[in-house]
């Protein structure tokens, strides 16, 4: 859990990543406690790596812990990731 607060690499919005890229989840901008917790319970927590499977017309499909998630258009601009 030590690398989760590693700020050596700048984080970028998920919206700026490309299909096929693998990135590390860093957090969500302007997220309330509830959202962060809900994401964590689904496996999306700081330090977790995620792979961009597909980007549709707005939303993204990402792979986390062997599952596929749809992240909506609003979310992909708020989720911050670090390229691996």
């Amino acid at each position: 859990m030590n690398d989760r607060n590693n700020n050596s690499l700048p984080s970028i919005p998920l919206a700026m990543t490309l299909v096929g890229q693998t990135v590390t989840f860093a957090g969500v901008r302007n997220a309330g406690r509830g959202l962060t917790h809900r994401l964590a319970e689904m496996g999306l927590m700081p330090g977790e790596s995620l792979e961009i499977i597909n980007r549709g017309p707005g939303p993204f499909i990402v792979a986390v812990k062997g599952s596929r998630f749809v992240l909506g258009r609003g979310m992909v601009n708020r989720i911050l990731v670090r390229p691996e």
Partner: protein
Amino acid sequence: MKDKHLTIALAGNPNSGKTTVFNAITGARQHVGNYPGVTVEKKTGSTTHGDVRLDVVDLPGTYSLTAYSIEEVVSRNFLLDEQPDVVIDIVDSSNLERNLYLATQLMELGVPLLLAFNMSDVAKNRGYNIDEKKLSELLGVPIVQTIGHKGKGIAELLDAAMAVSQDPQATSRQRYPNYGHEIEPHLQQLANLLEEKCGIRQRSRWFAIKLLENDAETIKRLGQACPEHIEELTLEAERIRHHIESICGDAAEIILADRRYGFISGACTEAVTQSVEVRHERSDRIDAVMTNRYLGLPIFALLMFLVFQLTFSVGNPVVDAFDGWKGDLAGAVGGLWGESGADSVLRSLLVDGIIEGVGAVLVFTPLIMLLFLAIAFLEDSGYMARAAFVIDRLMHKIGLHGKSFIPMLIGFGCTVPGIMATRTLETRRDRITTILVLPLMSCGARLPIYVLILGAFFPERVFKVLGIYNVTNHALWLFLIYMIGIALAIICAKIFRGTLLKGEATPFVMELPPYRMPTLKGLTIHMWERTWLYIKKAGTIILAIVVVLWALAYWPKLGDEKHAVFEQQRAIVQADAHADKEQIADRLEEIDNAEHEAKLEHSAIGRVGKTIAPVFRPCGFDWKISTATIGAFAAKEVFVGQMGVIYSVGEEADEESEPLREKLAAKYTPLIGFCIMLFSLISMPCMVTVAVTVREAGWRWAMLQVGYLTVLAWVLTTIVYQIGSRLV
């Protein structure tokens, strides 16, 4: 041992195959109800295993037992309050880590637990090698392999459930995550406080964890159990939370979630080996096409069109056959009275009221069945979630997100479960907006109206597409109607989100399940559940309404002197020596029709209809359509039943009487037909929808829903009719 019985609760993630296991255990002996006070569906079923009766409760599918959604709260309260003898957690074996998260929470809760590693065949195909014995030891919970859709491992699962229920050590053997030296001492401290101050001995660790997570539901529960100390407890928990956050840099609940995943991952590293990385490979390949940024929407539109096309091309011939039988039945029953029975009240009630009214609704059962089958297929195959994905951008523009679209798709079957499905939306704003526009998703009960109208006014034509595929113009019309509904829903949602329900769009996160071939059993059960509701409704509510409507159309009867006038006219025509046989028959029929019309206008329903008719005149509706439109408020399909009654009461019914469609075609124009469809699509939702909206959103929103939809229906229909009648 004869009357021994066991309560089993099934828990599990959405898409873990929980429903297939439930179906495999209970078969068709299922009962769908609601959890008290909330509209979460409660599915129960029962079976016998050996000499023990098993009552099985299918808990809603959840990822965890945090109280963020109503489903989670319901599941948790059920486990806490009802204390089932055994809890079976259905785990997708091909996605162990995420699925076991719920298991760790169940273990922390201290319920007698049993894990069903479902879809074990899929896991093997994907190269997972799971050492169940070892994993079972590491978790301290028995594990049984199952393949739900094939019914494999179910007997073993029930054996294991019996064993767990008889094992007093079952819960104490369970392992749960250790949260480390920064957190464990604080948990212990909170647990001690709970035991000392509130006397909570059972599950004190679990309550301590929930306090640390700042779980609102738990605080409420503790507040009731221990009102004098709750403030002290929450203050202490708050202090610890701050402390942990300052040391670890993350909120306590995030660290707890992280440790739980760590615990699972530790166990899986020891007990699971993976030979190849293949999960989702096939699904991803399908998705590369289905969710393609350019192809996604056209594919979705095409699929929806195919649903209607299939419903029509397969269903219509069956409906026609049913319609024929209905006519035969009416003739046979009517014939029982013989020549003298024309005036029998009972005969009119049976033939004109019940057979023509309820029958008109029932003959459409095959169509409804096919529609529900298609929707069940979209749901079970995993396509629904993809539809939410491809529509997200569009939905985002109107201030909702893709997830709102799933209740809308379900609304194509029936608005009521659609409204229930809005429970999965996170914010009230999104829920209300979705509920408000949901009735615009044309439901299955409106299908009979369209089919009746299309059959009457638009002669069926078949086009060949690509030289091979037959498409009927009826399917195209139907597609148009549904698209009008979707377009209006989008516009109205946009307006609501910009005015009454302003606010930022909510975050959209949703799991995309792998595609699965739906099983015949699952599809059949889903289809039958909903179809049976339709049939039951026809036999109860609609029957009652139709009888009332029949009575209103039958009484008061035309006076004898009026009848005498028509008889006199008949005598004059028959005595006419200059006319040939054909002319006489034609003129007699004209008189028959005029008498029928006079009888109806004299009846109660005729008087009511005439009173309200001016309101509907701009839409092109006469008083008969107007009354049927009002009747449709009780249930949309009543429109069809009521037209059936109106057009048969007072008529000298015999085997030769023409089908309703022909009567309509003779009476109205295709433009009016289209206006009927348009009005039925938009106008006020049925009574049940209103009742559910009141329960889910409150009176004010329900009244707004009824009001705006009715006004919108009237305005649009009037525009179409007024413009249309000037053009034609």
